[in-house]
């Protein structure tokens, strides 16, 4: 069996690294936590030694300046060449929550120019102007490598204060739609929404996650690693003990990534 190696990128303020690693391992990969200093400053690790780069959630550098901005700049200015190679060899990148903010602010998503030198969108303060943790429904729109076989709506939690996705302009939005880069939208659930809006942060056109043109780089605000098992859902007890250990809606995303590497890389 081919080993799929995932690099879980860490730095000051990364905090969803363990459960992201657990998610990839549950899907059959091996993972390694690597601090950004080991790639940039010390050069003891090489990005090319891995097939999947995962940028987990957290508050990198306290989200000072803007969420994810400092780590984004580190990627862009200190790892540019390594990233170029990594992407060119058809490898996979996923950014979750703060990781998504990092990828967008580094120009890696949606990367319309293809060389991540322009920033085409941003993620900014929620309309509610506060951090919120709650579950949302996501509608699968355009398919990417990571969402193969995910149809209809799935449930995942969000936990962020700066998740409002805004494309640079109308033209960018049109390209996102035309090129099929909008992977997930916040959606109305089957039941009542209570007193919360279904779109938790006011994202333009309810956009929750996007990919690049290759479909191999993917980022989303909700946390798939927090719904690996049915028992992580807030109302799992309504369905009973049986099946509480069955895969949750987020598992498939990690499985898709790992399976893709096994098959094509």
């Amino acid at each position: 069996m081919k080993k799929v190696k995932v690099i879980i990128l860490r730095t000051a303020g990364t905090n969803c690294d363990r459960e992201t690693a657990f998610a990839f391992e549950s899907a059959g990969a091996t993972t390694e936590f690597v601090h950004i200093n080991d790639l940039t400053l010390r050069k003891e690790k090489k990005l090319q030694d891995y097939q999947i780069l995962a940028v987990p959630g957290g508050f990198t550098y306290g989200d000072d300046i803007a969420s994810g901005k400092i780590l984004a700049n580190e990627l862009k200015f200190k790892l540019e060449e390594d990233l170029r190679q990594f992407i060119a060899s058809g490898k996979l990148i996923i950014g979750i929550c703060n990781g998504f903010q990092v990828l967008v602010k580094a120009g890696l998503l949606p990367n319309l120019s293809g060389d991540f030198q322009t920033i085409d969108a941003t993620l900014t303060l929620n309309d509610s102007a506060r951090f919120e943790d709650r579950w949302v429904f996501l509608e699968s729109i355009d398919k990417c490598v990571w969402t193969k076989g995910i149809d209809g709506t799935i449930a995942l939690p969000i936990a962020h204060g700066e998740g409002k996705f805004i494309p640079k302009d109308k033209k960018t939005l049109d390209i996102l739609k035309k090129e099929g880069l909008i992977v997930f939208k916040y959606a109305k659930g089957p039941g009542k929404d209570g007193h919360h809006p279904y779109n938790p942060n006011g994202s333009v056109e309810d956009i929750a996650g996007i990919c690049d043109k290759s479909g191999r780089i993917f980022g989303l605000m909700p946390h798939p690693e927090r719904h690996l098992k049915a028992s992580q859902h807030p109302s799992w007890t309504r369905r009973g003990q049986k099946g509480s250990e069955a895969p949750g809606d987020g598992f498939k995303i990690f499985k898709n990534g790992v399976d893709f590497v096994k098959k094509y890389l």
Partner: protein
Amino acid sequence: LNHINIMRANDKELMRLSKEGQLFLSLDEMRAIKDHFKKLGRNPTDIELETVAQTWSEHCKHKTFRGIIEYEGHTIDNLLKNTVMRVTKELNKPWCVSVFKDNSGIIRFDEENDVCFKVETHNHPSALEPYGGAGTGIGGVIRDPLGTGLGAKPIVNTDVFCFGRPDLPYNKLPKGAIHPKRIMKGVVSGVRDYGNRMGIPTSNGAVLFDDNFVGNPLVFCGNVGILPKGMAFKEVHNGDLVVVVGGRTGRDGIHGATFSSGELTVESETVSGSCVQIGNPIQEKKVTDTLLKARDLGLYNSVTDCGAGGLSSAVGEMGEESGAEIYLEKVPLKYKGLSYTEIWISEAQERMVFAVDPANIEQFKEVFERENVEATVIGRFTDDAHLKLSYESVPVCDIEMKFLHDGVPKIRRKAVWKKETFKEPVIKAKKDLTGDLIKLLSELNIASKEWIIRQYDHEVQGGSVLKPLQGITHDGPGDACVTRPILSSKKGIILSCGINVDFGKIDPYWMAASVIDEALRQVISVGGDINKAAILDNFCWGNTNKPDRLGGLVRASQACYDIAKVYGTPFISGKDSLNNEYSVGKTSISIPPTLLISCIAVMDDTTKAITMDAKKSGNSIYIVGLTQDELGGSQYYKSMGFTGNNVPKVDAHYGKHLMDTLSRAINKGYVASCHDCSDGGMAVALAEMAFAGGLGMDIRLSAHTRPPEQKALPDTALLFSESNTRFIVETADETRFIASMKGVPIWKLGHVSSSGSFKISGSDNKQLVLAGIAKLKEAWQSPFKDI
């Protein structure tokens, strides 16, 4: 170098030194210092006096609890040892690994791991600067598990707040106090911004309101950590280097330990503003990540956190048995200009102190440097049992550890207890209680705290099994949270808390008994077992120099012993915060006597956990346990402006049997949902279950179905009395449930319906309550909706 002329000081001058230096020491204590230095034939230096004040502060030393108390004709020598700690000693549970010794209490989790739990208060700083005070409150308590044994990984936070009423008219605000609404918002944001950035889920808590918390809010922050078995103990060796790791030292948090040992006054902000520390959660996150790496590499012999008293307390405690030498100029500073005393007692945040074998120092420092964390050698541990400090090669302090730690004179206090009699309301029999129920659901102590809960990440780390909000639309009030610390294992921990700010006004004994019962009820409600539960005490009291306040404290402590002993739940850690009063001129507002009981219980199979939301139309609803005429201190009375006198009692022998029996029934799968009856009584518990499940209920209090053990009571008492040891249970398997509950009083109240309406009929079978669940939910959610 300043010497303080203490040898020749008379009593008046001694007290002036204590007051002006913000030492908060009593005359007896100042005299003890004077005597000690007289023997040495010299005056103390300023830093020596400060070191003693920090170490002897009420905050660090718990002098009241450990002192001598004269109460009702007998003498109690060390209240803590005779009550709270005695329970643990007598129960002698094999799974208690380390209790009342370290920075938090440690119990066994599984074959490979232990878990530890600590809850602290940060009341005084939060009164002056709510955001910063509360943020550093959670930041500080996270460092307790980090500094427990050889270091535990923080896995869950808890928070409990007590505020004045947010709608307090401004003309009623005491001079110099911050308005309760501003305190509340600041505290909530402070804990949010620190806890979220640390990546630790905040999964359990409570928020309470009472007028007497104006000017002196309570902010309890807790943290649970997990550490590998065998790492619970540590030992400093002679010659080990003293290394300070993490944040730099600044002029923030000077005199925190001593200031929080006094009362708050109108001048506190001006005089003691610098006591509040400045937090930086990302610094602490970096320290956490690297500390755990260094731990797993076995690079140090001991660790503790810099909390109250700063380096003074941290080094003083670590070197208590050995002795230590510190070179104060080596401590890294945020900016120049600190005096050597400030360096020594600053409570600047995010610092940990380690004892490192010189052979490991290079590797140790590298682990931290790799992730941009400063680690600086500032001295070494010795074997002469002295604490020696120097600054730029000038010796500034030389104190015997023995005097520092054991030299504090035992304080002697008088305590009296006299039961206060409150006015009893006259309750007229009403034909319709729908309005009363709706009003009660909107009471601040009962209403939904979703606006706070959602601001806290309660799912990070991926281990949450039962979240604080439950039910069909994820907004019902869960009784306790369940977390899996190890994602590949079904084993988990249950966290719950018991607190009541109204019962204590009537009798602190029954308040303490009730909150222990409450914390344990919540464990049972989610499918736990109280035989695997350990508890923590956090006493917050008024000024215990006043005999009546102290009398209440004695009574509450006695209840801790009496009740916990019978329930079989050991205390593993605790803390007290006394002097919670706000004084303006001659009037002083004391907080109501408040005891927070936090509970941690190991759960072997978290897939057996149950929640409180009603599950299915047609299922039967039972009440387990007996209701008494105990409306004293109830939310029902409070909503009418009364306190009353019939405070709920606890019969722990009966309670233990009841909880064990119910626990077995839940474990066998006979219970679909369970909710403990607490604030608002049976009626509120039933309503919460109904609207959390999106289902209606038909409840009948008919005299015909009432079991013989249940006394006949007025319907208002049945519905709103807050009697302890009661649960509402929904079952789909009635026959088995009844059989399994043999020997325990149960009463079938009715069933779950699909109608969406919530109905209660009274003892005379006439309709008492009729409302749509949407309306009840709206009443419950509205008070904090637009904050």
